[in-house]
């Protein structure tokens, strides 16, 4: 528990009277990819949206329990400051349509009014785009609009935008569900590569994807955490019968 970036303790989430998540306990260690998998509607997306407190933006949303980012209680932090420390990539690529590729990468700074020198921004942009494996494709088109890129490139741009803020943890909410197989493969390679420097929490409904890229896997079913452990172990000798059934395609 000492080196865990994120600790979720007895955490439950609600929409009105509907309990979406039930007493979740997970801890996530540095520089690992943890996959959250489970059938649609099981609450996995809700869980990561609770981590950066995007969940509470929806009317009627409530939570109980604790989430810690390092030692800080997420729910006693200012959401704005918390979200600057946690990067998030969404299902559908969502670059800012009015901004150039360059401005999209540093949007977290620009929109928050954080002023840096031009060369500092240049460094951040190059580093983030290299980190997202996009630099070689766009280095000559930095001032074109981000929406001219292909879907997969847009998603990598969104990853670069998140990386630019030097996040403690990167939340990936089904980042490949809107992409074609080739772009998906690209993003997956990127996730494996990024692992060296960033901790990631990946939501996926794709079992194979969880197997390919993650170190740890959590299986969530009907709002409950059924099983959590090293990916290899879970995929070869699952402890819970429901995990086994899910992995073998009996439901989900």
């Amino acid at each position, binding site marked *: 528990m000492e080196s865990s970036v994120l600790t979720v303790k007895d955490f439950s989430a609600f929409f009105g009277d509907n309990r979406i998540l039930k007493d979740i306990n997970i801890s996530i260690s540095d520089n690992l990819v943890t996959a959250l998998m489970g059938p649609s509607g099981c609450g996995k997306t809700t869980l990561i949206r609770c981590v950066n407190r995007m969940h509470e933006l929806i009317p009627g949303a409530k939570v109980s329990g604790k989430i810690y980012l390092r030692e800080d209680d997420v729910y006693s932090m200012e959401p704005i400051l918390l979200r600057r420390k946690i990067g998030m990539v969404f299902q559908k690529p969502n670059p*800012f*349509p009015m901004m150039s590729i360059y401005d999209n990468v540093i949007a977290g700074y620009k929109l*928050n009014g954080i002023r840096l020198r031009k060369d500092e921004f240049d460094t951040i942009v190059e580093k983030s785009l290299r980190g997202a494996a996009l630099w070689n494709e766009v280095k000559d088109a930095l001032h074109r*609009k981000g*929406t001219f890129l292909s879907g997969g490139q847009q998603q990598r741009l969104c990853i670069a935008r998140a990386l630019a803020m030097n996040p403690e943890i990167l939340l990936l909410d089904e980042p490949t569900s809107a992409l074609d197989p080739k772009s998906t493969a690209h993003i997956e390679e990127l996730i494996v590569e990024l692992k060296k420097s960033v901790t990631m929490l990946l939501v996926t409904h794709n079992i194979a994807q969880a197997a390919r890229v993650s170190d740890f896997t959590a299986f969530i079913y009907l709002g409950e955490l059924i099983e959590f452990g090293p990916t290899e172990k879970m995929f070869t000798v699952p402890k819970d019968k429901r995990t086994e059934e899910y992995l073998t395609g009996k439901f989900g």
Partner: protein
Amino acid sequence: MEGQLKKRIFKDRLFKYLVILFAFISILPLLLILYYITRNGIAVINWEFLTELPKPFGEAGGGIFNAIIGTFFLIVLSSVLSIPFGISAGIYLSEKSEGKIAHMVRLCVVVLQGTPSIVIGIVVYMWFVVPFKGFSALSGGIALSVMMLPVIIKTTEETLKLMPYTLKEASLALGVPYYKTILKVILPTGLSGILTGILLSVARITGETAPLLFTAFGNQFMNYNIFKPMDSLPYRIFYYAMSPYPEWHSFAWGASFILVAVVLGFNLIARGIAIKWKVQF
């Protein structure tokens, strides 16, 4: 069987041609208006007409320069007054679209849109002309801005509602505060739609005469003071057309031509912006 089929094909064609015919008939009035205005108006338009002031009775010549400047002033005044309120209300309606107040506001917007312009003129007359004891361009601007409001509010609301929620999420997830998300992400992305709405509302009020009769009134002389009566193109047309002199009648046609051209111009620019600045998601 064969006959049945032929009958149907005939009916099909008949329907098609009827639709085309009615569509053509419905644009016929517009074409006729444009034709008459151009035929009667274009002859009097020359440099003097555009740059000279109206002459007193009996003197030949004269122009509509003060009316052009007046209309320009009125447009600027009403835009300055209505745009901040209109956009704010539009943002409110799109953000809090389910609230009780939002429903009330939406209802008011519809009612306001349907309020006859002459009624707005009388109300502004009671509010601003009577207490300050005099017609003024400012009161005219206020009356016109009230007419612009519903259009701006509606188009802003519609434009912002079309923004995907993922866009807002992207900004919020970067730790950008809500108000900055609206001002720096949502508004700029919807800029083309909002600008289109503003231009359409300007096009709408440019030709308004009724509310100006009680407010800006009209002025034969050049006036740059917004606290004094000011001329405008529609008022000048009214004034020239009501006169008994044939020369002034042709001036009314000329001024109409200019007015229609200005309104058409605003509409075309609005269309151009809507197409050219269309945001891709």
